[in-house]
């Protein structure tokens, strides 16, 4: 016991040391608005030698702080095209989604004093093409791709959509584009780039060659290192060392008067537990979503000035089946499992703070489902835990129970083999809990891990797993939501606006579900319907979403387990004015929301 006490004392000492270093940021210089401390939640590990390049995976370019986008797309439940102004002060979307006209900020300047012009934006769009974004893609037949980029005047651009394969989220794709200074970056694009692009968007060998060339330019873009950071955002990069990145206020920023902090510091971290330490010490003014167990969450809430803002996160996690493997090809087995697994318990153990148990399997996040299918949602089978129903389903699938253990129809033992990538602790925790629930019900189960997420996805797509965890309901665009269930992973590919179905095991179809599902007495093709969502407007999408939700609920290609919650950590000791609005608590991919709040003048210095 003495040894134990000594270890405890030592650990206590370590925590105290960690805490004592937490108060340093009060004394730092910078004047005016003070220092804003945060982390880049998207990328662990700062790289001091990485360039200030938003396309470099390690780049010291912090979207919202020293990297700007045309606009900041919102996290709206149903409309993917809503956004907050960025370099574009306003924009107009044609009613049929065929074009978007951008009006730039009249006073926008780069940190070196040069004005931000429409030419800058056009070049940035050219660079986006080399990386292949949703709106700016050279992939033939890509939905929602731009056709023409026209500079109307120094402050105005018009971008039209290729209506051969339109997408309702075309405007989102345009707005969510990084803006770079042409006077620094123009050398990465060859002089004949736009001609090359035109060729690349055509057909034949010429086009193929041009596409390869554009992809090659993409590599140059990723490696490009500007001699110094030239930013149109509220901050500009001052220096980076392995411990932290320091940004200072950009005096030329068009809204500089409303930017509260004089400096921003990004702290380095390698894992979640390090962020927990920063947060419990009250060191961070803001941090994006970080998974944390309840005990740690409580400690963070107790930290001086800390507040946790909960919001909507358009993603859910599910238990997905490979229907080419027995017995998962039988819908009764999947339904039986849905009745058996207590999702409340799974969520309580695996993601008590970062998730809410799925109300049912609808394919849609429960919050978005309220907006999309309010009338259908109550009619879906909620699959409340019910051992008797589960048993009935298993029996109708031909399974037999011998000595309290379920065996397959042919008498062979049944073992549910679940897979997850190593390090995904919430998924592993959930599978551990499901395993325990299944074993209690007489179904043998095991958990297998793969070394990392890319390997996991590769092996999953190759059909190596029976059961795996799968992210779904990726909103806000309706097509994105359902293509996770009735997209390429289940056999339906969208080639040049045409939906084609591949048999199980071919072209990445690992789910191997049936091509037609009976819903309300009629046969539907869920992949075809999902494809329609790509061009449907909100009103047209709603009945399709309802049909697909019913299909997902009856056929259960996956069992929706929990819907994620977006936890934002903020600290009220030094800054205030944090938004509590779901739509802007989470912005586009890779965007650091606090930078956007600061540049819009929402965050105020507490003095």
């Amino acid at each position, binding site marked *: 016991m003495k040894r134990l006490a000594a270890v405890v004392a030592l650990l206590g000492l370590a925590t105290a040391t960690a805490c004592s270093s937490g108060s340093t940021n009060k004394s730092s210089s910078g004047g005016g608005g003070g220092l804003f401390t945060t982390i880049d939640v998207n990328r662990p590990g700062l790289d001091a030698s990485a360039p200030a390049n938003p396309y470099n995976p390690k780049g010291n370019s912090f979207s919202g702080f020293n990297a700007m986008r045309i606009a900041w797309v919102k996290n709206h439940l149903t409309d993917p095209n809503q956004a907050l102004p960025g370099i574009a002060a306003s924009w107009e979307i044609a009613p049929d989604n065929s074009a978007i006209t951008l009006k730039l900020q009249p006073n926008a300047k780069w940190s070196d004093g040069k004005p931000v012009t429409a030419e800058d934006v056009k070049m940035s769009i050219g660079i986006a093409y080399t990386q292949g974004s949703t709106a700016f893609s050279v992939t033939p037949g890509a939905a929602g791709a731009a056709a023409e980029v026209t500079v109307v005047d120094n402050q105005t651009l018009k971008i039209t959509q290729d209506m051969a394969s339109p997408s309702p989220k075309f405007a989102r794709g345009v707005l969510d584009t990084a803006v770079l200074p042409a006077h620094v970056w123009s050398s990465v694009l060859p002089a004949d780039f736009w001609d090359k692009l035109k060729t690349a968007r055509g057909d034949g060998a010429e086009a193929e060659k041009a596409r390869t060339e554009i992809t090659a330019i993409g590599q140059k873009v990723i490696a490009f290192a500007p001699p110094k950071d030239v930013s149109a955002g509220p901050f500009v990069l001052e220096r980076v060392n392995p411990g932290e990145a320091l940004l200072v206020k950009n005096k030329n920023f068009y809204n500089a008067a409303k930017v509260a902090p004089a400096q921003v510091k990004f702290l380095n971290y390698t894992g979640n537990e390090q962020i927990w330490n920063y947060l419990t010490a009250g060191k961070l003014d803001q941090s994006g979503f970080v998974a944390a167990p309840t005990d740690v969450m409580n*400690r963070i809430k107790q930290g001086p000035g800390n507040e946790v803002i909960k919001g909507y996160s358009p993603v859910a996690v599910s238990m997905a089946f490979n229907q080419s493997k027995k017995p998962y090809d039988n819908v009764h087995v999947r339904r039986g499992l849905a009745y058996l697994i207590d999702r409340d318990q799974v969520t309580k*153990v695996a993601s008590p703070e970062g998730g809410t148990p799925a109300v049912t399997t609808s394919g849609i996040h429960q919050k978005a489902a309220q907006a999309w299918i309010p009338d259908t949602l109550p009619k879906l089978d909620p699959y409340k835990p019910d051992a008797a129903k589960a048993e009935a389903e298993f029996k109708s699938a031909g399974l037999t129970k011998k000595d309290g253990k379920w065996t397959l129809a042919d008498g062979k033992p049944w073992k549910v083999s679940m897979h997850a990538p190593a*390090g995904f*602790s919430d998924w592993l925790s959930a599978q551990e809990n499901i395993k325990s629930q299944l074993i209690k019900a007489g179904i043998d189960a095991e958990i297998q891990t793969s070394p990392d997420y890319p390997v996991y996805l590769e092996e999953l797509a190759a059909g190596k797993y029976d059961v795996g965890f799968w992210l779904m309901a990726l909103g806000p665009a309706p097509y994105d939501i359902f293509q996770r269930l009735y997209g390429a992973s289940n056999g339906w590919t969208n080639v040049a606006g045409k939906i084609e179905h591949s048999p199980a095991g071919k072209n990445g179809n690992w789910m191997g579900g049936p091509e037609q599902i009976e819903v309300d007495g009629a046969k539907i093709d869920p992949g075809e319907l999902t494809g329609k969502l790509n061009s449907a407007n909100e009103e047209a999408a709603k009945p399709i979403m309802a049909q697909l939700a019913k299909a997902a609920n009856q056929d259960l290609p996956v069992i929706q387990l929990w819907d994620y919650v977006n936890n934002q950590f903020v600290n009220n000791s030094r800054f205030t004015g944090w938004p509590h609005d779901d739509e802007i608590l989470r912005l586009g991919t890779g965007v650091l929301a606090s930078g956007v709040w600061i540049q819009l003048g929402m965050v105020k210095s507490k003095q």
Partner: protein
Amino acid sequence: MSTVLIPETASAAATMRRNFWLGVWRVMKRKPSRLAGVIIIAGFAFMGAFGPMFYPDQLPDDSNAITQAPSWAHWFGTDPQGRDVLALVITGSRYVLLSAAVTAVITVVFGTTLGLFSGFKRGRWDSVLMRITDMKLTIPGLPLLLVLAMVWKFGSPIQMGLVLGLLGWGGVARAVRAQTLSLRERGFIEAARGLGLSTRHIIGKELLPSMAPYIAMNMLIAVTGAVYAQVGLFFLGVLPYEANNWGVMLNLAVFQAGAMITPNALGYLLGPLLAILLLTLGIVLVVDAMDEIFNPRLREE
């Protein structure tokens, strides 16, 4: 050791054995800590062999009692699934200890055989074998294990032990060869040769017993090395996930339960940590005792 040169009768051998065990007992009695070491090791052996039999295959969990602080019901608290940490440590001990034992046996058998052969034969064989050993010693163990873990799943403790053992024999082989080279020039070996005793007899009855303590100690130290190596690999998360593995437990305690932040998860961290600490302590104490048993000069009569 020269006593063995006299042809033994059955009773003489028995007397010797009795004297040996008496000596062991005396050494043990002098420092009670050594006795504690033996008890610890015996305890771990018992835990590995029979411990898991006291628990069901699937440990009972409780979603209402996840990550609890130590209490009378759960001496080391519960894990994030609401399972008893002590039960996890005990059921997880079999894999760790069995693979450590396999490692130790392979290290010692392989290392000793090679070292003895090399040192006794000398010449060409010695050169070839020692160059191989040198090459083996230059291979960094951990990076190699990390690479191996990508292709091999290490599902069974025997596999794990085999790989660790094959990585660890180099040092023992070199040391045993050095000892052999020195011993083979001693008088009693000369005498044995002069008497025309067979090589097998010389190696088996003359050389090996002189090195027994050294080999035995190496074996025990190999056990701790193997435990550290595999727990480390599991901690890094490169080996397959198994809820009751000590390394996995340490990993989850820090990265999932937040043992560095919340005192509730401390038991989860301390459970496997204390098990490793205790095992190391037991081995150190037994090695200390062995040193004195086999080395007459250390005996304080």
